[in-house]
């Protein structure tokens, strides 16, 4: 089961991204600059969504790019795209920040959880990306509210199974089922819209 959107991302950015990574391995900072110009906004936006604080989101973004720079030679193209690699690092770093804070800021009920706005894509976002953005948002909007909340609390707020159950005030088994059904439904929607 592979999705066309991955192919879209691949065709729009992977060749250039891999070249940038190759330059970074040679110690060429221009490779890093190119990667930042293409994806800095995307990395920052994800970090901001998770940490909900501009200064922290900028720190996370800086850490992500420094890590990518230092570990460029560990990037394995067989395991996915450069962007996918960076976003994985971004989410992990951002959730680290949340956990270091020891408390969680607003998890749901704030703008982002209900956001259905369609931003103008930045220069760094290819048209295919903008289209993908719309598709993923539409798919998320189509989920029953509590499935969507459970998925978002896990992905964007880094909550554990037990914490989600507590927040939503539902049994552990219900959380499991909701997250699974939510993701399966997203999968079907996304496959259908490609």
């Amino acid at each position: 089961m592979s999705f066309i959107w991955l192919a879209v991302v691949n065709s729009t950015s992977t060749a250039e991204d891999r070249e940038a990574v190759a330059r970074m391995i040679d110690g060429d900072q221009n490779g890093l600059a190119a990667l930042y110009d293409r994806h800095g906004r995307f990395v920052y936006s994800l970090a901001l969504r998770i940490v909900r604080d501009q200064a922290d989101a900028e720190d996370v973004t800086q850490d992500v790019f420094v890590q990518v720079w230092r570990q460029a030679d560990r990037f394995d193209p067989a395991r996915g795209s450069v962007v996918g690699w960076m976003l994985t690092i971004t989410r992990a770093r951002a959730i680290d920040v949340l956990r270091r804070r020891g408390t969680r800021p607003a998890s749901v009920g704030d703008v982002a959880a209900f956001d259905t706005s369609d931003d103008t894509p930045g220069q760094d976002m290819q048209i295919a990306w903008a289209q993908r953005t719309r598709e993923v948002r539409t798919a998320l909007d189509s989920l029953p509210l509590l499935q969507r909340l459970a998925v978002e609390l896990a992905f964007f707020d880094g909550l554990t199974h037990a914490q989600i159950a507590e927040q939503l005030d539902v049994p552990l088994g219900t959380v499991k089922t909701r997250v699974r059904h939510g993701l399966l439904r997203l999968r079907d929607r996304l496959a259908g819209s490609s």
Partner: protein
Amino acid sequence: MDTEHDELREACGLYVLGALDPAEQARLVAHLRTCDECAGTVDSLRQVAASLPFAVPQVAPSPELRGRVLSAAARVRPPRSGAYATTATSLVTPAPRRNRALAAGWLAAAAATVVAVALWSQVSSLQTRLGDSDARLTDVSRRLDDSERRLQASTSETSAVRQRLAVLTAADAFELRLVGQPPARQASARAFVSSTRGLLFAASNLPALPAGRTYQIWYLTRGAPISAGLMQPDAQGNATEAFVVPPDLATPAGMAVSLEPDGGVPAPTGAIYLATQ
């Protein structure tokens, strides 16, 4: 085995989001080695999870961040680069052996100089380190203050969130969708109303408020509209607010949002921006 499978297949969703507790995760990982069905589900759900960042509203970082990132990278050693590795071997050039005694005296003097230079550089490095530690300590206490402030803010945010969640999970909650009216076609909103737990109102894409104006939310009932509360969207035109519902409110037939003077009015006077269909 089959009950194990039935139980663990449910956990695949939480697993790809990294939310399973460690014990259950270990069981699932072991199960994935022998169960093609679950392994396939996990693979496909991983890709779904990887697409979630696309749902995030895109925000540009400050223009200075680019320079910060590049100079931070310049401070760390680039990968696989030998250019930054220095060796000490070439620093000492042996003296020519024309005159041994002279050479010995010169060497002693040189050695003393080397020792002095080494001591001086150690002292100054210690001083630098002391200065560094001081700066770090100040930084740490500043961060501690920061964290405390955040903790307080988060605690009050958490109780606001709980209130909002209570609305969503209330048995009597129902949802109304509002669509943009002529002054704001692109706007939309969702309202969750529970007579016992309150109103949760989430609007997006509202135009920026003119000075001295506010958006006012209304319940549309058989009689006159009843004010539900005031709302000020953020710079992106989005707002989410929780309100108490009047105890005597009959189930509203619909809701609307109008533009009103600051502070709100008892009955709508301004243009309608959002309304249920």
